[in-house]
């Protein structure tokens, strides 16, 4: 027994070293798996507050560009106002009730909320964006984020009371189902972790026609985070993976990740139900296979 204590005393530095290494590596690897850091909620509040202060200063340098873009978007929104459209008068009285299902059979599936970016990088292989909306404002994991032009930015992966972390498209683990606007063909948007100016689109069959400059948009039906039609980027180089007979398209992202400031968060109201259905289906099929 005495020898054990002597041993511990003699090697206490080394043992502490090992202990701290194990803690650090445990933090690191458990985080990579679940995207949810230990104590991150707490730390996020502190870094978020400092980032907010810093951001106030930084905002000044981008004001002009940002204003121009907001103006453009306001313009496009004004164009969409119902006053711009005239209905044929059929004599039917239209009314509004509390039922979300309105009389024309439409109901609202996506809600957009504004948010401000507090911290962003492009220099890492795993880039995150911090925004100033959190669980106190009702934000949840898995919501989509677009910039003020309506171009896709990323997906929320972690939420603290007043801030959230967005996994940017410039993240080596980011996967987004998107489609080519012209042909409607589906593919997956990835990032190789090298050049922040380009994304990669894979799994597009070689049989279809693709040209430089083609738009890539969110697919809407294959991906439950984003509504259909938000711009992801444009094709800038066409490569072919001959082994698989698929295209490897180099995509120039539509969002400018270098000076993100104002973003919109997208909430899909049906999300919980859709996720549940996917999960249940999997369980059901697996159960069937095991019989």
């Amino acid at each position, binding site marked *: 027994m005495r020898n054990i204590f002597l041993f511990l005393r003699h090697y206490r530095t080394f043992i502490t070293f090992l202990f*701290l290494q194990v803690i*650090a590596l445990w933090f690191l690897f458990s985080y990579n798996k679940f995207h949810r850091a230990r104590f991150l909620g707490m730390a996020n509040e502190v870094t978020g507050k400092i980032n907010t202060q810093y951001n106030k200063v930084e905002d000044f340098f981008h004001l002009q560009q940002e204003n121009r873009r907001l103006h453009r978007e306001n313009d496009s929104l004004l164009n969409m106002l119902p006053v711009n459209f005239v209905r044929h008068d059929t004599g039917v009285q239209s009314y509004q009730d509390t039922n979300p299902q309105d009389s024309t059979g439409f109901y609202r599936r996506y809600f957009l909320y504004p948010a401000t970016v507090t911290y962003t990088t492009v220099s890492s292989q795993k880039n995150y964006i911090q925004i100033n909306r959190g669980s106190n404002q009702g934000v949840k994991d898995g919501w989509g984020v677009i910039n003020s032009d309506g171009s896709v930015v990323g997906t929320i992966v972690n939420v603290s009371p007043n801030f959230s972390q967005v996994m940017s498209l410039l993240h080596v683990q980011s996967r987004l189902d998107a489609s080519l606007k012209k042909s409607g063909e589906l593919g997956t948007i990835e990032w190789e972790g090298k050049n922040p100016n380009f994304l990669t689109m894979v799994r597009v069959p070689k049989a279809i026609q693709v040209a430089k400059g083609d738009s890539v948009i969110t697919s809407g039906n294959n991906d439950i985070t984003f509504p259909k039609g938000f711009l992801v980027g444009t094709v800038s180089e066409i490569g072919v993976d001959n082994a698989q007979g698929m295209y490897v398209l180099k995509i120039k992202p539509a969002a400018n990740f270098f000076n993100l400031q104002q973003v919109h968060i997208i909430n899909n109201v049906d999300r919980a139900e859709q996720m549940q259905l996917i999960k249940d289906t999997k369980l059901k099929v697996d159960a069937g296979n095991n019989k």
Partner: protein
Amino acid sequence: MSDFLKYTFRFILFILLQVYLLNKVPHLHRYIVPVIYYLPLLWLPFTVSRLGLLFIGFAVGICLDYYMMTPGLHAAACVLIMYVRPFLINILTPKENAEFTYKEPSPLAMQWTPFAVYVFVLTLLHHGYVLFLEWLSFGSFLDFIVKVIITTAISLLLTFTVELLFPRRLRFRTNTP
């Protein structure tokens, strides 16, 4: 200003510098990310105990990690270099003068060559370990090697620039209070 405040201030300054300046410099090349937040760790006084060094290293690393959303990555590397530091200093400094007349490692206390070796070895260890852990989850081996070399080179360049631009006021330790 008390020593404790001085060192805390240094750590905060360097972490903010790293997060808001060096991580935000426009991309020159995908390999070039200058990292110097660990410099104050190399400047800690000779008198700090080895256990103390480890805990300070962990604390500084984890602070940076929570900014960069990589919990544990830099903490692990800082703990490693803080563990190696006392051995290096023992090898590199002549016992009789440096540790007893100067307070902290610096070019003046250790001579330029041993100090350069000291900074080089710890920088290489730090970047090697951080990039190794990153490489485990992503990337190719060639990338890893090239990255270690280039990041170490750019960080050393910055370190020596800092040393030359801001020579630290070195106080002699004496018996008189």
